C-alpha cells in the first residue's frame, strides 16, 4: 500500500475484437506504481483478454498501452510493422506474466526454467543467472525443488515456480491470469501469500481472479468488467460495501449470498 506515485500503467482508448466481434470496447484506465489491482467480472467479460493485451500477447486493434514509459499504440487498421514489434518486445521485458496453467517448460528443471530467460534475453552468465534464480526460488519457498522437473510439482508449487520465473526478469509489473483457478483449495493460500508479500515490497500487480476475499482484502483497486467495458473502478472496500452500479451489485450478490465476501 504505497500508492503515492505517478501512473506506471496507462491505457488509452483500447479496443480489441476477434473475428469482427468486439471483446474490449474503448478502455481507458491507469494504475500507479506499487498498486495491486484485481479485475473481476463474469466469464466472457473480456478480463483475460484485457490482461493479455497489457503485454501484447494479444495485439490491440487500436488505442495505446503505456507501461513504465514504453508505449505500444496503434491506429485502427494499422498493420503491425517491425518497429511496432520491437516496441512490443521492449514492453514485454518490463512485464512479468503468470498463467492459469503455470506453463512451465516441461523439458527443463525448475532452476533451468527460471535461468533460461535471463540467460537468453538478458545474456547473463550461467552463474549470475543461477544466483538470481536461487534468490527468487528462496523467495517463493522452493529452494529445495531447484533440480526437480515441473511434472513432479504440485499445482501450488508449480504456480510459485512460475512466479519466480517471471520475477527473475526483474519486471516493473506482474500480471496474473486467474493464477489460483487451477489449484486445489488448500493450495490457493500459498500462492496468494506470495502475491501479498510482493505487494508489501512495492511490486505493481494486476490480477484477474475469482478470489473475492483476496480481491477485497489485498487490492488497492478493484476493476469490475462486463461486456468488454470497465463498469466500476473502485477501492476494494467501497466496491464491496457500496457498489455504485446495478450490474456490479448483481454480480457481487452471488458471492455475498454464498458468504464468500
Amino acid at each position, binding site marked *: 500500500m504505497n500508492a503515492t506515485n505517478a501512473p506506471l500503467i496507462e491505457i488509452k482508448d483500447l479496443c480489441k475484437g476477434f473475428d469482427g466481434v468486439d471483446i474490449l470496447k474503448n478502455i481507458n484506465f491507469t494504475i500507479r506504481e506499487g498498486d495491486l489491482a484485481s479485475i473481476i467480472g463474469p466469464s466472457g467479460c473480456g478480463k483475460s483478454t484485457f490482461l493479455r493485451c497489457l*503485454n501484447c*500477447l494479444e495485439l490491440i486493434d487500436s488505442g495505446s498501452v503505456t507501461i513504465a514509459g514504453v508505449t505500444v499504440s496503434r491506429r485502427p487498421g494499422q498493420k503491425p510493422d517491425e518497429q511496432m514489434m520491437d516496441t512490443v*518486445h521492449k514492453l*514485454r*521485458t518490463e*512485464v*512479468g*506474466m503468470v*498463467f492459469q*496453467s503455470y*506453463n*512451465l*517448460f*516441461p*523439458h527443463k528443471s525448475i532452476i533451468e526454467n527460471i535461468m*533460461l*530467460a535471463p540467460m*537468453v*534475453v538478458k545474456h547473463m552468465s550461467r552463474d549470475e543467472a543461477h544466483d538470481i534464480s536461487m534468490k527468487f526460488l528462496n523467495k517463493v519457498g522452493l529452494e529445495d525443488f531447484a533440480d526437480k*522437473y515441473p*511434472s*513432479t510439482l504440485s499445482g501450488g508449487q508449480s504456480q510459485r515456480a512460475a512466479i519466480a*520465473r*517471471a520475477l527473475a*526478469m526483474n519486471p516493473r509489473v506482474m500480471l496474473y491470469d486467474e493464477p489460483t483457478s487451477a489449484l486445489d483449495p488448500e493450495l490457493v493460500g500459498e500462492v496468494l501469500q506470495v502475491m501479498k508479500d510482493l505487494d508489501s515490497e512495492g511490486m505493481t500487480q494486476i490480477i484477474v481472479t475469482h478470489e473475492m476475499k483476496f480481491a477485497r482484502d489485498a487490492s488497492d483497486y478493484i476493476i469490475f468488467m462486463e461486456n468488454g467495458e470497465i463498469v466500476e473502478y473502485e477501492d476494494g472496500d467501497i466496491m464491496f460495501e457500496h457498489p455504485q452500479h446495478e450490474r456490479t451489485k448483481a454480480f457481487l450478490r452471488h458471492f455475498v449470498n454464498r458468504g464468500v465476501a
Partner: protein
Amino acid sequence: MKKLTAIIAALLIIICALPSFAAQKELKWGGDSEGGFPYMFPNPKNPKELIGFEVDIVKELATEMGRKPVYVNNAWDNLIPGLDRHLYDIAINGLEVTPEHKDIVNFSIPYYKTYLQLAVRKDDNAIKDLQDCKGKVVGTLKESYAQQILQALGDVKLRTYIVEANTYEDLANGRVEAALFDQPIALYSAGFNPEIKFVGKPIGSITYAIAMRRQDKELTTEVNKALVALRDSGKLREIYDRWNLWTPVMAAEFNDYSPSKVEPSRYNEWADAHRPALTINQRLKRYGKAMPAFGRGAVVTIIVSIVAMILAMSLGLALAIARVFAGKFLSRLATVYIEVIRGTPLLIQLFFIFYGLPSVGIKFSPFWAGAIGLGLNYAAYEAEIYRSGLFAIPRTQWEAALALGMTRWQSMRQIILPQAIRVVIPPITNDFISLLKDSSLVSIITMVDLTKAYGQISAAYYDYFGPGIIVAAIYLLLGLPFVRFANMTERKLAAAESDGKEGYRENIYRSSTRFS
C-alpha cells in the same frame, strides 16, 4: 535464423564439392555385370571376378591399344545414356548395331555376328520354327531385336524379361511355350538343360559392336584398328573357340573355315557348373563364398541411407519451419516442394538426378546422386513429421516464452524445438527404416548396394532363392537396431508424459487387471 542459413550453406558446399574424374591413359569401358552369360557375368567360383567373352575381348583390345582397362558397371538399359554422362568412353555388352542406335552413337566395326535361336521344351513337337510361334506364348529379352522380330510376326503372346535366365526357367516350368534369344544366350542358358531343345534355322542377323560417343571419332578409329589387328592375329577366334561361340556365321564373317584348335574350355566349365543339381552343402558353400559381396553391398546400403537421412532430417526441419513460421512466399515454396516430391515416384527422381541433371551441367557421382535423391525425397516426409511435432506443442508454451521477453526465434529454439524433437524421434526412426529399404533403388544408378549384389550373385549362380533369403535377412538385421531404438524412445516418451514416473503406463495396465 543465422544458424539455419549456416546449415544450409554447409550442405550446399558438401553437395558441390563432389569428386570429378579426370581422364587418364585408361580405357574406361561400361558394361552390365548382370548383363548375362556368356557376355559378361560374375565368375560363379569367385563372384568378385567379372568374366565373359566380351571381358576377354576388352582385355585383348586394351592390350592392343596400350591402355589400362577400367571397368564401370551400369544397367544394360542405361549403357548408352551412360556414354553421354561420361561414365565411360566405350560401351560393350551385346549392344546391337541398329539404325536407332546408329543415330546416337558411333559404332566400331562388328566384333561378333550371330542370330536368334528358338528354344522349346524337349517334349514339344508343335513348334518347329518361328512360324509355329503364332498364337503361342513366347518369351524374350525386353527391348531386344528378338522382340522386334516377334512383334513383326504378329499374333504372338509376347512376354518380355529383364533377366534371360528367368525366361528359360519359365520355359521349363511351362509359363512360356518358346523362348527366342540371341544364340549365345540360348546356348549358355539352355544348351546343357535336358528339358529344353533348340529348333529351327538361324533367325535374322545380329551384329554386335562397341559403342562410343559421336564426337569421339579418334577413339573410334583407334578401336577399329585394334579390332582388325585382333581378328587378323587369330586372337578373337581363340576367344570364340574357348567360349564355344565359333559358329558357321562367324566362319563366314571372318572367312576362316579352319577347324577349331582350342578346346571350348570356358563353355565346359559353365555347363559343368550348371548341369547337375547341387546338394544343399554345395549350395551353402557357394553362399558362404558370396558373403563378402553381400557384406560390401550392405555397407554401401547403410552408408547411403545414413547420409540420405542426415540430409533429409536437416532439410526437412528447414522445410517444416519455413512452412509453419516463414512468410507467405517461403511457406508456399516449402509446401510446393513437399507436394511435388511426395507426388512423384522416387525412382523417377533418382533417374532425373543421375541422368537428367547432367544435361544442365549438374553432375553427381552415383553415390551422391543416390544419397541426395533419397535425402531430398525423404526430406518432404520428415518435414511433415516435424510439422506435426511443432503443432503438438501447446500454444501456451509459446506464450510463456514470449511473455518472458524471448523473441520468436529464441522461443522456437529454446522452448518449442527441443520439445517437438522429442515427439518426432519415434516416427523419424521408423522413417529411417523405410529409407533403408527404399535405398535399394540406388541399384539402378550403377551403385552396387545390397540389392544389386543380390542381382549379380543370383545371375551368376542362376539361383534367386537362397541369395534372396540371405539378402532379406541382411536388410532385416540392418533395420533391427533402429526398430529397437524407436521402441525405446517411445517408451521413454510415454514415461515422461506420465509425471516422470518410469513405467507408468505399464503399471496402469497391470494394476487394472489386479483386484486389490
